[in-house]
């Protein structure tokens, strides 16, 4: 594929992520922090996010599957996930976490289960998309091009 075309498709893809609300401006901030001294900043952060989130989701599933759900344990996990997702700009995950936390406060087990499902769904979505994004970026870098700076011109 042509370099320019690849760059264009990367831009379009990123734009679509923003338009869909999967990512928000915080992601842009992260991209701004990436420079020569810190070339892999974004991917590092995102990878860490994935690791953390996988772990948290596991714990959450276990906690919610108990006979008696200990919400005092569930809440901190959700809080952590919310924090992480907001730090990297995974907007939809963060929103789902907010809803999750509300139901935790209400101690509504049924709703919490549903929320967990929702969170997982959103998380896998964003994980998928980000992985695709990184693949595109790697392709461009491999072809010798520069990753174009994102302008929020829409």
């Amino acid at each position, binding site marked *: 594929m042509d370099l320019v075309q690849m760059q264009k498709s990367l831009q379009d893809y990123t734009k679509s992520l923003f338009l869909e609300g999967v990512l928000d*401006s*915080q992601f842009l*901030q*992260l991209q*701004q*922090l990436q*420079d020569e*001294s*810190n070339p892999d*900043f974004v991917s*590092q*952060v995102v990878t*860490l*996010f994935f690791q*953390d989130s996988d772990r948290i989701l596991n714990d959450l599933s276990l906690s919610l599957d108990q006979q008696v759900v200990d919400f005092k344990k569930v809440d*901190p996990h959700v*809080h*952590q996930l*919310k*924090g*992480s997702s*907001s*730090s*990297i*700009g995974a907007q939809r995950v963060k929103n789902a976490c907010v809803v999750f936390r509300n139901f935790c406060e209400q101690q509504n087990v049924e709703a919490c289960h549903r929320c967990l499902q929702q969170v997982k769904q959103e998380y896998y979505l964003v994980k998928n998309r980000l992985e695709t994004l990184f693949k595109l970026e790697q392709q461009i870098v491999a072809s010798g091009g520069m990753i174009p700076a994102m302008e929020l011109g829409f």
Partner: protein
Amino acid sequence: MKHNHPLAKEGRERERESRGKIPIHMMEVCNCIEPQWPADELLMKYQYISDFFIAVAYFSIPLELIYFVKKSAVFPYRWVLVQFGAFIVLCGATHLINLWTFTTHSRTVALVMTTAKVLTAVVSCATALMLVHIIPDLLSVKTRELFLKNKAAELDREMGLIRTQEETGRHVRMLTHEIRSTLDRHTILKTTLVELGRTLALEECALWMPTRTGLELQLSYTLRQQHPVNYTVPIQLPVINQVFGTSRAVKISPNSPVARLRPVSGKYLLGEVVAVRVPLLHLSNFQINDWPELSTKRYALMVLMLPSDSARQWHVHELELVEVVADQVAVALSHAAILEESMRARDLLMEQNVALDLARREAETAIRARNDFLAVMNHEMRTPMHAIIALSSLLQETELTPEQRLMVETVLKSSSLLATLMNDVLDLSRLEDGSLQLELGTFNLHTLFREVLNLIKPIAVVKKLPITLNLAPDLPEFVVGDEKRLMQIILNIVGNAVKFSKQGSISVTALVTKSDNRAPPDFFVVPTGSHFYLRVKVKDLGAGINPQDIPKLFTKFAQTQSLATRSSGGSGLGLAISKRFVNLMEGNIWIESDGVGKGCTAIFDVKLGISNESKQSGIPKVPVNPQPGNFAGLKVLVMDENGVSRMVTKGLLVHLGCEVTTVSSNEECLRVVSHEHKVVFMDVCMPGVENYQIALRIHEKFTKRHQRPLLVALTGNTDKSTKEKCMSFGLDGVLLKPVSLDNMRNVLSDLLEHRVLYEAM
């Protein structure tokens, strides 16, 4: 005739007595003559009858008395009546009993008779005695009755009189009402005649008015005659004088010229005629206190004629009525005159009002048109102006031939001049409107003067005129006022000095004016607490001004210089505008000159406020360019339990050039923190107060303030309670996650400058 003398009576009695005892023929012989005829029988009969009737009468009188007294119900002397009644009854009884004594009667009857007689005697004597007291009273009653009757008759008469007077009054009132019910002169007069004629049942009624010349009386109104002809009589007739001489109604002869209104039939007796004067009051006759003088009086003559054959006479009350009516007519006429006058005045005023209103509306329209025009001019003319000036300036920068350069320079100069002129005119018109307001602000006075001088210096240098600036030592540095316009004033004055001087030097002096400095006599400076008066003197040794021309200097468009010096241009508005501005600043401006060729000094005072702060409040113009990442090597500590957000925050700070250490727990933080770290960012998202404790611990660890790092909380919620909590735990600032790069940058710079930050939320 035989008389019934007592002897005979005795004889009879004895005879009767003796019937029982003494035979009849043994009666004593009296010397009386007795007729053969039994005259005794006749006499006795008559006596009998009379006695009977007397008795009857005597009995009936009291009855009648009782009956009528009962009817009258007002009779004061009842006791007397009783007495009288008793007397009469007894008399009657006596006479009644007497009836039995005509024939032989028993002793009992005689006894009864005697008793009756005795009683009667007693009662009658008593009554007689009583009557002595009573009859005078009764008589006086009678006299009183008479008196009252007379009085009643008198009252009746008076009543009659009053009634007639009242009727007269009623007539007068009615007449007056009729007369006064209209304010039209003609109607008044006509009504008067009609009503008078009706009330007094007159045959003819006429009104003679004085003509304009005042020498004749013209017949103006009549009652019966339809069209009074142009009939005049000279005013100096004796009868007229007589009438005019008194305010009363005067009887005049029916043959006098004023009374001869209709063709005289000759046969009949003419009714009596009365004439009365009617004063015609003019407005100017009215004094406040007294009634109009009689000197310049005009009178009209009212003539009233009784019907011809009625043999009626003028009664006093009718005359009075006429007089009263005449007065009322006078008053009514004067009212009518006043009303006419006031109506005329009102009409005049209304006309004037209408005219004024129109004029005002025209003026408003004119003003609005001018304002619209100015507004349009303001925008429409300035825009092309700016374009011309800007483009000409740009053109100057390009490659041009000398000819072209000259042309461009001329274009530029002319357009600058035009722009200035427009501004001046617009300013002036706004000033005159009063719509211009000063824009007050704090500024540096010293700097202002220096700037002005810098602007003027080039021109002055070219003209070889040295300019010196003297600022008084007590001149405040920071003042409150309209900086732009003050500069305009100073620039104008100094500019004028430069413009109109060919040689010499120019000195500009600024000082705080005190009351002992020389000022124009009608102006006093009173420096109040927070204000002072700035005095600026600009002295030049140039052309000078003729003292006579000085007042004209400040008028618009006036130029006193000859055409030669006028080449320096200027609209002549400069001083006028400056004066307006100075006045707006509650000051005064004047020019002193020793004469032509001896230079002149322009002086003005303006009121300025003293700025309170010794240094300027805050930074007047915030420097807009933030320092780009000037935090090289700044040591910071980031404490966050969440790995991802820890990494992101670290990335931010590293990007800004900081040296970042990260910890993931409170204990680690306490262990690691040192005085080398300038800022500690701690995440306080987790619920609970444990995170805040760390702040206290750090406070404890670093007792000296300058060693302690600044503590900033990173949190996800920005409500007041979080802020308050942070403040209470001694944190220096709160930041909202997620933090953007610019945000972090600004925050850091503010933080380091002020050592406190509570704004970046």
